[in-house]
């Protein structure tokens, strides 16, 4: 079980609700940061992900290591939250 999950989104991104729905179905809670409401966070997300896109999901594990999943990518997201 991850310690924390943060999803970075925008208002019109259609893959963002998919990530949220997937996590909900797995019974996991998450924090959401809308980058249109918080443009000041964009640089930080870019630094962590190397990508100028959403959704970006950052999964913090129990040992504080982090997995960064770019886009709605089940092949990366599923093992990250396992």
């Amino acid at each position, binding site marked *: 079980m991850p310690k924390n999950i943060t999803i970075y989104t925008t208002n*019109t991104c259609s*893959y963002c609700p998919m990530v949220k729905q997937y996590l909900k179905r797995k019974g996991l809670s998450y924090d959401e940061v809308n980058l*249109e409401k918080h443009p000041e966070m*964009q640089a930080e997300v870019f630094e962590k992900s190397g*990508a*100028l*896109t*959403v959704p970006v999901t950052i999964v913090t594990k129990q040992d504080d290591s982090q997995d960064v999943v770019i886009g709605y990518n089940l092949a990366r997201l599923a093992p990250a939250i396992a």
Partner: protein
Amino acid sequence: MNDSPAAKSRGSEPVPHDLVIVGAGPAALSAALYTSREDIDTVLFEKGAIGGLAAVTDWVDNYPGFEKGVAGLELSEQMRKQAERFGAKIELGEVQKIEDQGKLKKLTTTEGDIYAKAVLIATGSEYKKIGVPGEEEYYARGVHYCATCDGAFYRDKKLVVIGGGNSAAQEGLFLTKFASHIDMLVRSSLKASDVLIKELAKHKDKITIHLNTTTDEIVGQDGKVTKVVGTDKNSAQKVEFPTDGVFVFVGLLPNTKFIQGSGIELDERGFIKTDIHLMTKVPGIFCAGDVRSGATLQIASATGEGATAALMIREYLEVQERGPLPQAVVGHPQLYG
């Protein structure tokens, strides 16, 4: 053995679903609405966004029933809810392989193996890449294929939109909400609808259209896109467009990788061939929507095809269950005879 709700078993024996639909775009959701309403046990598998490309389209103006148009995401949500209301189940996972085992079809998925009496392939298509230097290198760091996802990163920035069809025009117009200026590079002439061309003309202060202009290279510096280099085909001169980002909408590629080795036939462009009843060469495996050879790539057509496929599948399942009726009372005698 797996714990996916999509996989059912009776002891060691798998219990098949009546219908597994691969994809959850407009064709798939329309089919699921019809089959679920008739108590046909229906499961959909979607690896991307529910609603498919429709869900990532900013605004849909040509789907009947919405006088003022509708957001693609909202339309997709309504379709999903409508199908689920009648019992369709949507699994978030990927179908990786289909195997014809005669009366049953085996599907290998990321959620485990499942079996179906009939399969509907409605996987749609995805945006094509242009295949020029810099495109791969700057993917998601200046090169994008989804305006509704990534447009917001370009507030007051310069953009290049590549393409001249409906998607390029629609998404280009959406990007005017953010960008300070857009150069639209069109390889030949505009192929968008008259309505969209008129809209583009209304936004000429923000969008400059460059016809007969190829895209040859996306150039960057320090990890960021800085310009697009193209060729003006009229003068055969190289042209440069300084930009902060590039959005590409140059056509569609069918999602058919997972059917390799299944016996399903493709046309020369990679779309799935069907007969007039939307059945592929493999009995019991049907196809509808943008991935089908001959599809018109419209949301309205896709939902119509989904409904048609559902009725054909119902008939197929009935024939499998109780055998063929005498020809005189069969609606489509050539379908399974």
